[in-house]
């Protein structure tokens, strides 16, 4: 499965949750599959989805699901120790690990070779780290939500992108409707 197929499958789970979605094609895919006011789309700033989600989870009690990528985590590796030492039980970091920089032309990342993100998350102090294959994402995500524990979920899948339109919504509109959904 590729990322967009996983997103389609888990859309019913994501719909009722606060979601912080990674820059580029992941946000375009989620926006096209199931746009919700509870989705925060990153239009820039590669690497910071996990950090934005962590700040959000620490600031309020609702569950927060971050949809991140292997390339973005590698860009901001310092995030893993911060998560490992601070993440509250309402924080789920789902890393769609397709071994490539999808938004820039599917160039391989180091997770396609020797690098193990689940192992790095454990070494950084993250207590609940789960690695699954693409087809098992839905049940693993529901388990993470039910566990009430901070979870790093590494989803191994194929490289590839769906052709989706660029998000043209104004960033302040995205942010404003998201904040209303957070507070609502």
């Amino acid at each position, binding site marked *: 499965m590729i990322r967009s197929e996983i997103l389609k499958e888990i859309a019913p789970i994501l719909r009722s949750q606060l979601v*912080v979605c990674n820059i580029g094609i992941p946000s375009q895919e989620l926006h096209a599959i199931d746009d919700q006011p509870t989705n*925060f789309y*990153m*239009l*820039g*700033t590669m*690497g*910071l*989805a*996990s*950090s*934005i*989600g*962590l*700040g*959000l*989870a*620490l*600031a*309020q009690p609702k569950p927060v699901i971050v949809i991140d990528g292997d390339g973005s985590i590698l860009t*901001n590796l*310092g*995030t893993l*120790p*911060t998560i490992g030492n*601070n993440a509250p039980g309402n924080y789920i970091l789902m890393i769609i690990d397709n071994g490539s920089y999808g938004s820039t032309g599917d160039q391989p990342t180091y997770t396609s070779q020797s690098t193990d993100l689940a192992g790095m998350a454990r070494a950084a102090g993250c207590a609940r780290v789960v690695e699954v294959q693409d087809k098992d994402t839905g049940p693993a995500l529901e388990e993470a939500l039910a566990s009430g524990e901070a979870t790093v979920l590494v989803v191994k899948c194929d490289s590839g992108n769906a052709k989706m339109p660029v998000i043209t919504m104004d*960033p*302040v509109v*995205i*942010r404003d409707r*998201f*904040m209303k959904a*957070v*507070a609502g």
Partner: protein
Amino acid sequence: MNIDKRIADDLAANGVSFVTTVPCKQLAGVIEEIDHRDDIFHIPSNKEDEGMGLCAGAWMGGKRPAIIMQNTAIGVTINALATLIQYYRMPLPMLISYRGELREPVACQVEMAVHTKALLAQLNIPAYHFHWQKDVEELDNILKYTFMCNKPVAILTDANFWGGYGDQ
């Protein structure tokens, strides 16, 4: 006057309850003060752009954030400032140790100091330079201004403000 306590008191009085820090020797006292307080949650960052992500999330979650960092961090946060904090119009007080200014003993620090105000000006980020300890009296107004306009605002605090850098 205990300058570290004064700064933390002003942050708390303005509702700032989420502070991330990347340390600097000049900021050690204020970071320690914030770490000990019950009314402010302190989360150290490994890099300043990561810290800006944390602050953006905390603000969307209903908390008033702040970041405490060194001016060298301007070099690594320009993208986060432009495409996250400014693009989504978010408030972010940045208490910045202004290394490389008067009474600086480390020559390399001057290399970023000479770019600091120019970079902030290029980004249209309001910047305030605290040189004398009494300049801290402006902090309360600066924090109110930041959360009024939903912009990043820089407070540059040099070695003279902190009473010298070890050798004085």
